[in-house]
């Protein structure tokens, strides 16, 4: 389990020291993490929740790592996306042999590995303070990656992202301080045991939640996301949309369902659900009106994040609890894969056409058939058409909503799906139009198209493996 954190960390340091070996280091880290994740999945499926005490120290003082179904699922997802991005980024970064391109490549690999370290640490950590550190590191790596493009818009977006991220972290940290003041511990399990219901903890939870919501870009605190995700290089956008925002969401789940479940009242849950619903509608409507493909995809992320927050209201009752939990996380996984595929396709389109203005993209299906196919498949999953992972996730949420009698959730899911279909259709309509001569100027290496397609296929195939996900998520989840 330590290997999951140390592997990419050491590789990051090495990649920074030996810039020429950056890509090799990324592959080495992918190997180490891949093996570690697979063995961890086996261990968890075979023997339940796994924990590990770093250097033999125990909980209150030392650092505990713990892998339950949720953590393992996210670790695996991160590894999958990171490997895909590694495969994609090599030809992407080598596009031009300019000093800027070399510069970009020099820093991309250490930052990627560093991001990976932070994510893995986040998923395995068990106390609120370590989680803070991991979250902060994640933010730094993400901001630096956004800035990698080096152009004015990207830098401004990065700076805005940094301000949001840092102040959000400080809100979270202040909350941690208050929790410590109340419980004299920051360990998730111990907090859950000791937590008294009272105003101090309410304030603490509110502060932490506020910070995390900003990081997870939940409506109305999503304003920083579209510029940051749209101005970053394509593989970075993919990482940000697929994983980084999910990190904050993951922490929210831990906080609300493990550390302080007593505060998960129907009113609070409904507030989350309302914000989620608003995010779905607002994000989708904005995606419909964007003129640039990457912005469209970024707004689609805002919308898709909204679905994750529907888990909160659906977890209040007994009947829909497990279904909602699995549905939300399946949706998270499917979205991560589909969104990565979409951003990678956007990168291919940018490469081939030199721009991503949707109106002028006629003929994608003709010039980049594999990319267009990937885009279509990713769209299928985002819309939630069967048998994709998006469908399985939405189905679980929908049936949980119906079983709990929360009709509005069902309505929001359906309307959101139709809106998603509408904005995907905007792009696909252009894809099938005949190509205008002069639009497509540069070829795209097959590996860049293949990676996107592979991830889109995973997103679609995920639905068929739904049973497996559910089995995994059952382990160590928030139920008696």
């Amino acid at each position, binding site marked *: 389990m330590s290997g999951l954190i140390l592997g990419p960390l050491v590789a990051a340091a090495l990649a920074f020291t030996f810039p020429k070996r950056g890509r090799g280091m990324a592959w080495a880290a992918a190997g180490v993490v891949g093996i570690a994740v697979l063995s961890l999945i086996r261990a968890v499926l075979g023997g339940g929740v796994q924990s590990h005490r770093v250097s033999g120290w125990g909980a209150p003082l030392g650092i505990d790592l713990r892998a339950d179904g949720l953590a393992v699922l996210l670790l695996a997802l991160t590894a999958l996306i990171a490997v895909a991005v590694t495969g994609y980024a090599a030809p992407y970064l080598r596009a031009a042999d300019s000093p800027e391109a070399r510069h970009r490549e020099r820093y991309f690999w250490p930052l990627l590995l560093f991001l990976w370290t932070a994510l893995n640490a986040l998923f395995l950590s068990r106390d609120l303070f370590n989680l803070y550190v991991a979250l902060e*590191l994640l933010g730094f790596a993400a901001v630096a990656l956004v800035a990698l493009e080096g152009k004015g818009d990207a830098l401004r977006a990065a700076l805005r992202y940094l*301000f949001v991220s840092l102040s959000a972290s400080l809100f979270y940290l202040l909350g941690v301080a208050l929790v410590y*003041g109340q419980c004299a511990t920051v360990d998730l399990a111990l907090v859950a045991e000791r937590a008294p219901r009272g105003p101090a903890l309410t304030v603490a939870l509110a502060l932490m939640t506020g910070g995390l919501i900003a990081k997870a870009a939940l409506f109305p605190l999503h304003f920083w996301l579209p510029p940051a995700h749209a101005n970053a290089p394509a593989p970075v956008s993919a990482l940000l949309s697929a994983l980084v925002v999910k990190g904050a969401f993951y922490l929210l789940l831990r906080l609300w369902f493990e550390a302080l479940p007593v505060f998960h009242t129907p009113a609070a849950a409904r507030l989350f659900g309302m914000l989620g619903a608003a995010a779905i509608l607002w994000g989708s409507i904005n995606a419909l009106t964007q003129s640039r493909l990457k912005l469209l995809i970024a707004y689609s992320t805002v919308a898709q994040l909204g679905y994750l927050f529907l888990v909160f209201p659906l977890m209040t009752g007994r009947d829909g609890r497990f279904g909602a939990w699995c549905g939300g996380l399946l949706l998270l996984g499917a979205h991560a894969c589909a969104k990565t595929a979409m951003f990678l396709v956007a990168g291919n389109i940018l490469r081939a056409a030199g721009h991503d203005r949707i109106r002028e993209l006629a003929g994608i299906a003709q010039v980049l058939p594999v990319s267009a196919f990937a885009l279509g498949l990713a769209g299928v999953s985002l819309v939630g058409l069967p048998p994709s992972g998006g469908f399985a996730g939405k189905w679980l949420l929908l049936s949980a909503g119906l079983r709990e009698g929360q009709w509005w959730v069902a309505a929001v899911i359906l309307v959101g799906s139709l809106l998603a279909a509408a904005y995907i259709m905007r792009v696909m309509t252009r894809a099938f139009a005949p190509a205008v001569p002069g639009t497509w100027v540069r070829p795209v290496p097959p590996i860049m198209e293949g990676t996107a397609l592979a991830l889109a296929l995973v997103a679609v195939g995920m639905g068929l493996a739904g049973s497996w996900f559910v089995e995994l998520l059952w382990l160590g989840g928030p139920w008696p």
Partner: protein
Amino acid sequence: MPDADPRLYLLAGLALFAIGFYSLVVQTHLLRRIMALNVMGSGVFLAFLALALKAAAPMPDPVPHAMVLTGIVVAVCATGLALALADRVQALEANEETPAPEEPPSAETGSEPEDAG
């Protein structure tokens, strides 16, 4: 320090945090905003120290102190990253066409996990 009411420190910390956040939202100058973030951070650290004191024990609780130390390291890195970015943004705004690369942020972040993890 043991003589004063720890609640005072806590309130002072919260006040600092609030002032810092207010300036972050209101100010437009990049340097001022970075300063505001630091003020917010100091507020949080003060709150930590106050809470360490609050525990009814003869000695202050050492754990929050350790946390604050780590927090300071993180805050220094954050400030470095922010300053580097702000510098680049201002340079670009002053002279839009210089396409020079920017690296201190990555150097900063690359060296950090050893301190913090």
